[in-house]
């Protein structure tokens, strides 16, 4: 169960929302994926081509590149349950018992 996670976080500029999204992501990863995750932050303002290639519309957008399949989460990642669900870090059964 030592799966590597590659997470790309697309933001637009150094806004409070961008910073919040990164902080939330880091906190969740530290708790759930210690030592087996990598986060890349891409600023679409600086790299519009990458935003174009990934067809990013809303920011922040988090894309789980690895493990497959690709998953997308939009928002500042403040809704922890939704992030865990989006990254498939909780099984549906677990999810129900949490609620």
């Amino acid at each position, binding site marked *: 169960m030592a799966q590597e996670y590659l997470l790309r976080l697309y933001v*637009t500029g150094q806004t409070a929302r961008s910073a919040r999204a990164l902080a*939330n992501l880091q906190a969740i990863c530290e708790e759930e994926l210690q030592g087996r995750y990598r986060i890349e932050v891409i600023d679409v303002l600086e790299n519009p081509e990458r935003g174009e290639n990934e067809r990013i519309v809303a920011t922040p957008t988090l894309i789980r590149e690895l493990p497959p399949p690709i*998953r997308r989460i939009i928002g500042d990642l403040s809704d922890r349950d*939704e992030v865990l669900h989006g990254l498939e870090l909780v099984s549906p059964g677990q999810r129900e018992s949490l609620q």
Partner: protein
Amino acid sequence: MSADALPGIDKLATGIPGFDAIARGGLPEGRTTLVAGTPGSAKTVFAGQFLAAGIQRDDTPGVFVTCEEAPADLRRNFGAFGWSMADWEADGRWTFVDVSPDPDEETVEAGSYDLGALVARIEHAVERSGARRLAIDSLGAMFSRFPDTRQVRRDLFRIASRLKALGVTAVMTAERETEYGPVARHGVEEFVADNVVILRNILENETRRRTLEILKFRGTQHQKGEYPFTILPEGGLIAIPLSAMELTQHSTDVRTTSGNDELDRMCGGGFYRDSIVLVSGATGTGKTLMATEFTAGGLAAGERCMLFAFEESREQLMRNARGWNVDYAPAEGAGNLAIRCDYPEAAGLEDHLVRIKQEIDRFRPDRVALDSLTALERVASPRGFREFVISLTSFIKERQIAGLFTASTPSLMGGASVTEAHISTLTDSIIVLRYVEMRGRVHRGLAVLKMRGAGHDAGIRCFNIDDRGMHIGQRFSGVEGILEGHPVHVQQGDEDT
């Protein structure tokens, strides 16, 4: 600068056929215009054509932001209009910004967001390509995809402001629920409120009719009201500016033959070259014959002639003409005559109109006969038909072509035709053909009712038809009420001869 343009806002000629006349020059330059319509009202075609026309006109680069359909689908749909999508994309004249949802990818929402990436991508595409035109299709798709409507609205407003700052003229499409209701869903008109174009696809008298209306252009002029448009498989949207065209007409005093010497005399020396003559009468009174003589007379005078027939097949038409000693074949062979036979039901009236115009511009005739308007009236609503006649008459007059249209009256003995009632004010001259019952025999009568700005024989003349055509004889004397279809014999001697 025309009197229409107020200082401050220039117009950008779109190149969409007919639209610029209605818009008095085009879309407000450097602004965003909302194009709203119900599903199937051709919003996407309008948006695409706005860019295509810019490229075709003067190589203006454009950016197409698609929020709903995948670029691959649009390439195929637009390519079918004859637009060179592959070439245009390859050399940067057309850029897609693909915002369409990926059906295989589920997106989870976890917290607040904005459409900053979309704004950045659009700006990037505009700056890289040097685009002067941009289309976003459609806003509704953004609202259904991102539930935070307040945020979406705010970001779309941001996009509109950025485009304004960049000097880009933009079209954004939006959905409507009803043809005559609120401007658009989701309150989008609030942030692109300055300029609104409505596209409609109306069911009227069991006939589909497309119209375009400019609801507002802030600070600049446009034509008011609904204008019909159609979509041609080979070219896209084509609008039909009616009153906008009427203004440009001028008239000449040059006379041209009606094809019948006596009728020429009755009209004071023939028809005017750029006038439209309506020939009205019951079935069998000689309308098609008049159209035939009009055509043959033009050919004999060395003119190029066109004949549009909507009631008879080609064979029947040729046979009828031969029966009146007119042979069309040599003139057609020599390229001086073009005959087009079509079923009225083969297309919508707007499509007929566009085809007729195209054929006329291709063949460049000196005179045009159309037999009959009544057949075309069957496939249209009253309003659509009137618009058709206005548009066709102004088109023909603009080119200084002589036109002769026929119309059928429903009753054998008299009365006005429906067609006549609708369009009599639009034609320059009206000739009525009537059956006249006198002393147990049926005669034929002819009268020139109206002749633009000229004296004419106001008498009702009898005529007969034989294998050499129409022969106009004497006035009916001692009879009144022929035009109404109720001839009454009166005392001789009190006439104003």
